[in-house]
């Protein structure tokens, strides 16, 4: 699988994504600077976490308008897998690749903790290695992950099976005590219509190495992508 990680000024999970990819894919991803306007041939583009442009104005707003994103949008439209993690998710919504917006956490504080996520759909390359209804644990680390979308958008996301992950209790129940940021519908990650773009707030790349204490279940996301490319 040929993968690339986009680097914006202020990205800070670019290395983490590259390390996880290198280990799982067996080859290092291309690191693409935000001013580059030509992308190599690719199967996966990762828009990593961090604080692109310091999260100033609105998180993801400035990065979404940088030159490289025009190319990312073109590739997404051509069917290349695009994964936005945390700030990457914010960037993808700001760029219009995914609907809705990520607002300040309901408690107005940055939150870093492991969260339990229920896999809502396996009908996409990102989650094909999970079981539907499976609960995985990834860490979150964000101040603005409170997912919001207008009612008609929410209806479409639900109706088209485009919610990929929801925040739940360890045994897979949805309840407000396990929704860390106030997201509508406890949404942690969503897909685009074509199911080749995933944005999620939790960090699968930090949960890919079992030593780091999250069960190592993040790796399956990248393994699923490799499988889909090979298929």
């Amino acid at each position: 699988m040929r993968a690339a990680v986009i680097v914006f000024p202020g990205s800070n999970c670019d290395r983490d994504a590259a390390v996880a990819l290198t280990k799982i894919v067996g080859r290092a991803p291309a690191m693409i600077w935000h001013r580059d306007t030509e992308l190599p041939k690719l199967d996966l583009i990762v828009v990593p976490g961090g604080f692109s442009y310091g999260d100033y104005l609105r998180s993801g707003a400035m990065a979404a308008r940088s030159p490289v994103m025009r190319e990312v949008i073109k590739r997404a439209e051509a069917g290349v897998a695009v994964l936005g993690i945390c700030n990457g998710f914010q960037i993808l919504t700001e760029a219009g690749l995914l609907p809705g917006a990520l607002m300040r956490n309901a408690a107005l504080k940055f939150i870093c903790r492991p969260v339990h996520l229920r896999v809502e759909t396996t009908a996409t390359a990102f989650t094909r290695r999970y079981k539907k209804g499976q609960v995985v644990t990834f860490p979150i680390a964000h101040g603005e992950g409170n997912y919001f979308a207008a009612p008609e958008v929410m209806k479409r996301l639900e109706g088209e099976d485009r919610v990929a992950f929801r925040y739940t209790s360890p045994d897979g129940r949805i309840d407000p005590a396990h929704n860390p940021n106030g997201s509508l519908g406890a949404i942690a990650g969503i897909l685009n219509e074509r199911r080749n773009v995933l944005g999620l707030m939790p960090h699968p790349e930090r949960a890919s190495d079992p030593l780091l204490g999250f069960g190592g279940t993040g790796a399956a996301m990248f393994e699923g992508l490799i499988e889909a490319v090979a298929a």
Partner: protein
Amino acid sequence: MTLDLAAVAADHGLNDTEYQRVLQILGREPNVVEIGVFAAMWSEHCSYKSSKVWLKTLPTTGPQVVCGPGENAGVVDIGDGQVCVFKMESHNHPSYIEPYQGAATGVGGILRDVFTMGARPIANLNALRFGSPKHPKTRHFVSGVVAGIGGYGNCMGVPTVGGECTFHPAYDGNILVNAMTVGLAKRDGLFFSAAKGVGNPVVYVGSKTGRDGIHGATMSSASFDADSEAKRPTVQVGDPFTEKLLLEACLELMATGAIIAIQDMGAAGLTSSSFEMASKGGLGIALELDKVPMRETGMTAYDLMLSESQERMLMVLNPGQEERARAIFEKWELDFAVIGRTTDTGRMVATMNGKVELDLPIDPLAEAAPQYNRPWTPTPKRPTIAPGDVTVPNDPIAVLRTLLGTADLASKRWIWEQYDSSVMADTVVGPGGDAAVVRVHGTKKGLALSSDCTPRYCYADPVEGGKQAVAEAWRNLTAVGAKPLAITDNLNFGSPENPEIMGQFAGCIQGIGAASRALDFPVVSGNVSFYNQTEGRAILPTPTIGSVGVVADVARIASIGFKAEGEAIVLIGDGPGHLGSSLYLREIEGREDGAPPPVDLAVEHTNGDFVRAEIASGAVTSCHDVSDGGLLVAIADMAMASRLGATLDVPAGAPPIHAWLFGEDQGRYVVAVRDAEALVARARRAGVKAAVIGRTGGRELTIGGFRSISVEELRSIHEGWLPAYMAGP
């Protein structure tokens, strides 16, 4: 009109003798810019004039030490050609004035100290002291400081993995914010601040200069008085985004070999950085101040020399490397300007639009910096309190409930969850254990990190308190299985002009020195913050010890949570059940008296070496040192971390129950093991006291002969206090 220059000097905090010395060095009257520069360079903050004689007594060497105090941060060898670079620094006064920005810029400053040396920062810690939870401003300080630390560190993408946070009325008017950064570098890839070569370009990079924090260095060297809240200087605002770019740009440039010397602009900004580089290199510097990138119009030489705008660095480049460096900084969208040249004059000469604004000899200014051997009186010894002098509780579980719900012992989760502790994907143990453990990227090695100090012990007996802070740091590293390497000390005290405070300082240094010598735990960097007092009321002496250790294999460390049912719980070390200056005495009996627990450094060493070897061999399944609150609190911590219960049996010959459960004897650990007999036998051979005191199992914590309590209830008390407190008015 002629200016009364002596009065200007006095306004800047230079006393009479110091001003006479200025006249002597110059052989003429200084101008106002020069007075500003002298005042900054000779401030307590920059010159360490009251502390130097004492700091010299600390042990700073050892086979592991690559670079001791004197550079931006200390450096220790961690094998395989790699070094760990670390330091802790205070930002107390700015954080009191503006908690968010003060704490944020504190983190920014310490990060720069570490990456200036060529190291990539890999972890942050923070030690916080606030006033009484009852004080009306405490909540405001806690929320602002924590948000500021998180705001800066999170944006930088450096995980904040540990720290400490306690409360005491002595900090009502002077909170403490001590921030520590740990970085990683190649042994042969370190950078230093000594300028070399004549005619080399002096380069300014980073943010533009504004009028931020002019006089920061002199401010942090003065006590607060009633109207200092009104005299607010321009507060420095942190821009972590720019700092992240500065970090990446500096590391990129460092890899090219273009840099001869580099120094961050911290306290006293351009003044201290340029003097430091010139003085260490035995050179002069000619600065053209009009070349400095400026944020505001109408800035004067005085403003430019003394501004404490953040996120700036000064470098000396190899000749001809300017354009290569400029390209890197422009790529990262940072300001870059050649603002001067190194000279062989031994003088700092700064011009602005061709006019000489400052012309000072560098060495005399550094050499003649005042040094005071301030008078000090030793702190009187307090009597030891025997267990028999303290009421015996009839329900130890009720005592445990109270203790776990006190401000000092309650969980600090509300704080650390606002810090990104897992970014960089190398955090093996984050906040919540004894020491944090961060993997050395790309290896199986790990660094163990901790921050420790028990100010109430330091107040009761500075020498024992100083020892205890170092011993506890060493113990916390040992408890995860790490080999302790070295420490950084962040010494927070009241006014050194008060002989009693100076006595606290001297005592703590003696204790720190003794412990660090006995435990092969040298001091490689540090920071002194005096004048933490308001209207004569000083803080408790607080020498915060930041520590670093190394583990060979991060897969073989110990953590505090019990791992399985039916394991034996063994107490390593013993003691009479020392209750003087304990939390039991303060929280249950309402007394803050008595001598603190003495530290036997030889026993500390033997016990720690034994525990470390047992962890390495895999015999120990969980481990926790015994500190604040004593044995029962330590066992509760282990139960709460795992949600597994335990049953304790008071062994024959134990001290009275309250002394046994809540005494704060030093040098002790609690471990869980599968084979207790074998461990106890090995301990006996090693000359270490070890006693089986109970078993893991169930969902309750039970003390033989008393009632039990569910671990869930303990958790809810322990986790509940801080969120409930912060939700208050």
